[in-house]
């Protein structure tokens, strides 16, 4: 039975991968939608099933993994722990929701669209399960490529420049990380097959062999890659453009899951690997992240485009997560775990609403919309709930995470927490502004024609709302899942 549990990570990767390739092979626009939906549901089932075999205690993959490049010490070693479970489940959960929500949107060459979406899912699954640095890097890049094509092919007017900026930016970052990985690899002790090893466990014990100076500069190589992905101020400028220009389904993947890659990567590949550098730079980076958080919140106030607004809001949220990680307390990191999941759900919900509005009116400008609440009350209720979750109202999912993160941050540094707290207020300002201007007030020519949402959208949003409340009221299952991994990451620090 244990062996079966260990097979799940593979299935998580293979299922979307095969389905994605199937879409490309069949080249059938009609079927591909169904294939995508079915395979994503299968993935969800697999992911849910894997939760029952969750082995939280330690990171363990298949015994040896598949030996991949034997004499350089890389093996296809994948596995799941609590954090992996949370993120793979988020991925598995999000894709069906996205597919359902956008079921009525028709894309040109939809076989390619769905194929690429599924490939992106496979890449993401790989990132979240990789237990070998090289495998991790592989998937890290692989998740990017389909998204690049999706955004550039089906995106908005300025999509080519925007997504290309995004691509080059993250590509440069990840190449820096590659250097870091290689350098670390060369410090690892010999294994049975090879001089060195890419295995994660080897990386975790590597810091005993590193001088502080080495740790310091290696830290930056990794951090920049992850910071670009998250993104953390001042590496964030690709994000609003990319979100704005991508098709909304892709934006959901980008913001709902892909930014979590950065957070996840910091927790898995940075924090435990460079303890000395963590101690040295935690204040600097936490301060930077919090500055970026306030900065993004203030800018969000001024945004007129719904997508840009949500983009900046996302930067602010991620800034908090980043700061919390570097506050490096158990509570804060535990909060980050929850928040990774919550933020994914909330922001996907927001995107779905935006997608619905844009599809019906063709407009995303806040200033041109208004009065949607009359025409679509259910949509409005859903949106209000999601928006409130986004600003971390108690009993919604985000509250739990933010509460813990702020708590941890407060322990780390009172002033940082106080300054970060301002963003709670600012978040309320921009979110409520948006709700007010888009949904309240009188209808106008643009929103006159808007209709109530259809069953599939209700279903998608309903599922999200249920998730929001469930996590908000009873987050304990998530804690149980991640408790051990948090301890592992933070060590003995409180």
């Amino acid at each position, binding site marked *: 039975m244990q062996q079966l549990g260990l097979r799940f990570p593979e299935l998580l990767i293979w299922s979307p991968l095969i389905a994605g390739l199937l879409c490309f092979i069949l080249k059938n626009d009609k079927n591909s939608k169904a294939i995508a939906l079915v395979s994503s549901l299968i993935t969800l089932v697999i992911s849910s099933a894997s939760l029952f075999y969750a082995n939280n205690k330690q990171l363990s993959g298949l015994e040896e993994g598949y030996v991949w490049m034997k004499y350089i010490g890389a093996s296809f070693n994948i596995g799941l722990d609590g954090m992996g479970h949370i993120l793979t489940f988020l991925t598995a959960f999000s894709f069906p929701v996205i597919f359902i929500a956008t079921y009525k949107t028709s894309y040109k060459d939809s076989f390619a669209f769905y194929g690429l979406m599924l490939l992106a899912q496979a890449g993401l699954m790989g990132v979240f399960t990789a237990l070998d640095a090289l495998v991790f890097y592989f998937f890290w890049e692989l998740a990017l490529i389909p998204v690049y094509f999706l955004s550039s092919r089906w995106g908005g007017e300025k999509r080519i420049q925007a997504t290309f900026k995004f691509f080059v*930016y993250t590509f440069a970052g990840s190449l820096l990380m590659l250097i870091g990985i290689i350098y670390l690899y060369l410090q690892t002790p010999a294994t049975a097959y090879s001089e060195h090893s890419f295995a994660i466990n080897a990386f975790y014990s590597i810091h005993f062999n590193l001088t502080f100076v080495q740790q310091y500069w290696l830290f930056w190589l990794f951090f920049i890659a992850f910071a670009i992905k998250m993104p953390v101020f001042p590496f964030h400028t690709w994000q609003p453009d990319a979100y704005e220009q991508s098709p909304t389904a892709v934006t959901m993947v980008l913001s709902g899951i892909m930014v979590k890659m950065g957070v996840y990567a910091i927790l898995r590949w940075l924090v435990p690997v460079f303890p000395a550098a963590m101690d040295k730079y935690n204040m600097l980076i936490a301060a930077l992240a919090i500055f970026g958080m306030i900065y993004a919140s203030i800018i969000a106030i001024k945004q007129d485009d719904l997508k840009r607004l949500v983009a900046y809001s996302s930067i602010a949220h991620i800034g908090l997560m980043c700061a919390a990680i570097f506050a490096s307390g158990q509570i804060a990191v535990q909060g980050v775990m929850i928040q990774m999941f919550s933020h994914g759900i909330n922001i996907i919900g927001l995107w779905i609403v935006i997608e619905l509005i844009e599809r019906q009116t063709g407009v995303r400008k806040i200033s041109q919309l208004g009065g949607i609440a009359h025409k679509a009350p259910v949509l409005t209720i859903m949106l209000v709930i999601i928006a409130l979750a986004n600003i971390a109202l*108690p*009993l919604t999912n985000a509250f739990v995470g933010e509460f813990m993160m702020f708590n941890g941050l407060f322990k780390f540094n009172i002033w940082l927490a106080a300054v970060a707290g301002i963003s709670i207020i600012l978040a309320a300002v921009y979110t409520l502004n948006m709700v007010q201007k888009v949904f309240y007030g009188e209808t106008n020519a643009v929103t006159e024609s808007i209709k109530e949402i259809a069953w599939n959208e209700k279903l998608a949003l309903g599922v999200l709302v249920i998730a929001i409340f469930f996590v908000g009221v009873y987050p304990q299952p998530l804690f149980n899942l991640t408790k051990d991994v948090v301890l592992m990451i933070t060590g003995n620090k409180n």
Partner: protein
Amino acid sequence: MGFLINGLGRKTLSKTLSGIIGSGVVLGSFLISLYVFFSVKGGNTHVAHYFDFINTANLKIGFDFQVDQLSAIFLLIITGVGFLIHVYSTSYMHEEDNKDFAKYFAYLNLFVFSMLLLVLGANYVIMFIGWEGVGLCSYLLIGYWFKNTNYTNAAKKAFIMNRIGDLGFLLAVFWLFSKLHTSDFHTVFAGIAQLSKTDIIGITILLFVGATGKSAQIPLYTWLPDAMAGPTPVSALIHAATMVTAGIYMIARSNVLYSSEAAEITRLIISIIGLATALLAASIAIKQNDIKKVLAYSTVSQLGFMFLALGCGNYTAAVFHVMTHAFFKALLFLGSGSVIHAMGGEQDITKMGGLNKYMRITQLTFLIGCLAIAGCPPFSGFFSKDAILMSAFEHNKVFYVLALFAAMMTAYYMFRIYFLTFNGKFRGNQEQEHHLHESPAAMTMPLIVLAILAIIGGFVGVPHILGGHNEIAAFLQPVIPVHENAVPISSTTEYGLMIGTTVLMFVAALFAYVQNRNFVAKENTGLGKVLENKWYIDELYDTIIIKPVQSLASFLNNVVEKKGIDGFVNGMGKAVNYGSRQVRLLQSGHVGVYVLLMVIGILILFIVQMFL
């Protein structure tokens, strides 16, 4: 207890479809509250643990509820007044269509739920959940008529200002966590010895910041008058009777912290803020013409009194005043709602007058409310306000004089609106005059009940000196220990003060009558204008906070973001492009140049290798 919570929980989930269900469940919970009250009175306090909200390695927060004397009183107020207002609403809101009607009750019920959560929570986190929940409901209900941009603006303002306070609350909670690793009330209060002076001052001030947000104190009070945009019953319930007193509840709940030696400075701050708010709000109320606005400022002012009491360490008086205030202010609001209902939505008192002919019950009950709030014995307000004034007198004579002045203003403006509304000639238009009528029973019944309460409510707190037992103080004894005053005031002084106060109130009321007997609308000048414009506080906030933030946002967006950071990123791209254009010029196409460059390359290599 479980029964109570389940009932409440079900209610919020099952979005009630009619007012009857809505009122019914509140009635049910009221009855349960009564039961709870009596069981608590029998000394039966209780903490119930439901499930672990957050349980990790070193952070444990249970979903716990606590019933004791303090919460029992609030339970009664909330469910009791809440029930009356639900009943009132069924009639007041009957013009709304079905869906909105249901939505309204859903919100209202959600509010009651959150409020109960707030008072029942056994730790600060659960309290905070309720705390934010009531803020949310307030937001939703203020913005209930969401077509009107002003209303939604008001809703937004309320929420954001509350959030500022919430931040303070939250930080205080974190502070507690970081020092004591818990937020359970009893462990916190038991562990107070472990806190340093700084800790206590920090925590208490931060908690108070939270309270200023929720309870509309300086500097965060401006949302409350704007919140009158919501339906009148909402104003009555949320913005007069219950939610705004959450701050009082919280501080009273934390009285152990506030009473401690270290928190002296906090107490001083609270008194000053409370007093200043009472004065400021009362002075504004004098010149307002919107009936609900006057009541709103009056609420702010009364809340100021309560904080004054808290600052003076007299928690019982504050809670007492919360109770009486809930009765008479709800009464006044509902009365004004009745008036507005009759006037077809008109709220300007300069357009009213002579309504006594048409609405007897409303007039009478409103009068009772006025008397109560003005502090006329033996109405409830007299006892509670007197308790506050007494403690202020004990504490600091200056406070007392100022508070007395504020109380006088209260009497003045309350009677001003009373006279303007009900006496004199009708000043509205013909159509409105035809429309005038007494409200239906569903509206008048709650008025009557509340009026009775407003009359008798004070008797639970009759001070010893008047031969009473101050039952409320005794009841709250387990939660709020009574502090014996170091220098007891002599009975004579106390009598004298009481009489003096009462006389002054009458003078003020008389003054109001004289001044407004023959009302002529005229332009205010000088101080009057300043008061009419609320001391220009809103404008001040606009200039010093909102505008700078807006322009900062523009600056960051347009300059720093686009030109600075993004400009740098794009500049890298441009630099590469530029470099590309320059470097390719090396590729001139001439063989001679190529060979020359190669030879130079060779020379460089030689020099590097051989001579460096």
